[in-house]
């Protein structure tokens, strides 16, 4: 889970989840607490989906 996808690709990550921003990859300070946690949950669920999925090569989800 990273904000700069080309870096994840160049270092060889196989399952890549693009995130929000460098200083807060899994949050967004402009949202209220509830909204921010919902956003984080959505991203983590996406990561779990990626972990569950078979991939043959580097994949951006």
């Amino acid at each position, binding site marked *: *889970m*990273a*904000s700069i996808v080309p*870096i*994840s690709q*160049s*270092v*060889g*990550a*196989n*399952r890549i989840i693009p*995130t929000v921003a*460098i*200083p*807060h*990859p*899994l*949050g967004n*300070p402009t949202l209220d607490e509830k909204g*921010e*946690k919902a956003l*984080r*949950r959505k*991203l*983590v*669920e996406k*990561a*779990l989906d990626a*972990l*569950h*999925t*078979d*991939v*043959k*090569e*580097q*994949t951006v989800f």
Partner: protein
Amino acid sequence: MAYRVIHYINQFFGGIGGEEKADIAPEVRDGVAGPGMGLAKLLGDKAEIVATIICGDNYCVGNQEEVGKFIVDTLKKYNADALIAGPAFNAGRYGMASGFACSAAAAAGYTTLTGMYPENPGVELYKANTYIVPTTDSAAGMGKALPVMAALFAKILSGEKLGTAEAEGYIERGVRINTFYEEVGAERAVAMLLKKIKGEPFTTEYKMPVFDRVTPRPGVKDLSKATIALVTSGGIVPMGNPDHIAASSARNYGGYEIDGVTDLVSGKYQTAHGGYDQTYANQDPDRVLPVDVLRDLEKEGKIGKLYHTFYTTVGNGTAVGNAKKWGEEIGKQLKDNNVQAVILTST
């Protein structure tokens, strides 16, 4: 005066036996054995092979501490100056053993050299510690390998200044050496750029690291039974950064227990990372390491368990070599503790 050299070879080239003898402990014989005969002839009066260590490949790989001590003791006993090993061609364990033998001798201050096929796993492991001459993949290339090994070894022993790996014919070690140029960097950079534009060949002065690739693992079939770990390069640490992970060019990583922690709250956790604005991560460290959400998912049974420890470092100018080493250490700990999947977060 001829330099005194110890030659390290395995059970096969030592004439003891094949795979069935791969478990034999190291032994020393005075003078040359096996490929040492050819090497001795090529080294001529520049260096003398005073003794040969023969060791089973499995034994060496499995008993490194003991074999390393044996090698250094033998070098001392024979009052030797240097160790040459192999060549190992593409024999994996022999390559690892030859690389290790050189590495152990080099750590004790001896000059070392070995030869192997560039794809031998011993190359990746030991190229930084010793000179490795590239060989063919099989012993059919012995006749080609020995003269190159002997010539380079004699040159290194004589203390002659070596050129680049490319010029001298050994495998690049990843060692940087300061050099003075007549022209300043700006002039060299412009000259390089002009060559590039014209489509002419040019040589970089600073090679980018090469990242390895890993075949993707199959997906985790049932996440509701899986233990999942969190690892981050975003620098999230317990308040006060107890292991003093540096804000940039980190020299270590930390592992911190989170049993019973359902939320990373401000004031108890913080970031140690010096490469981004820390405000948001310090306000709510879950923005970098999503412990709160994974606890919810654990409670709901969507995942089996959140692993009891998270691992963390600062990915800010951190040496690739260090990161690789830590990744391997962390991976081993997670594997030994039956973790099925890892979520890595990066800032």
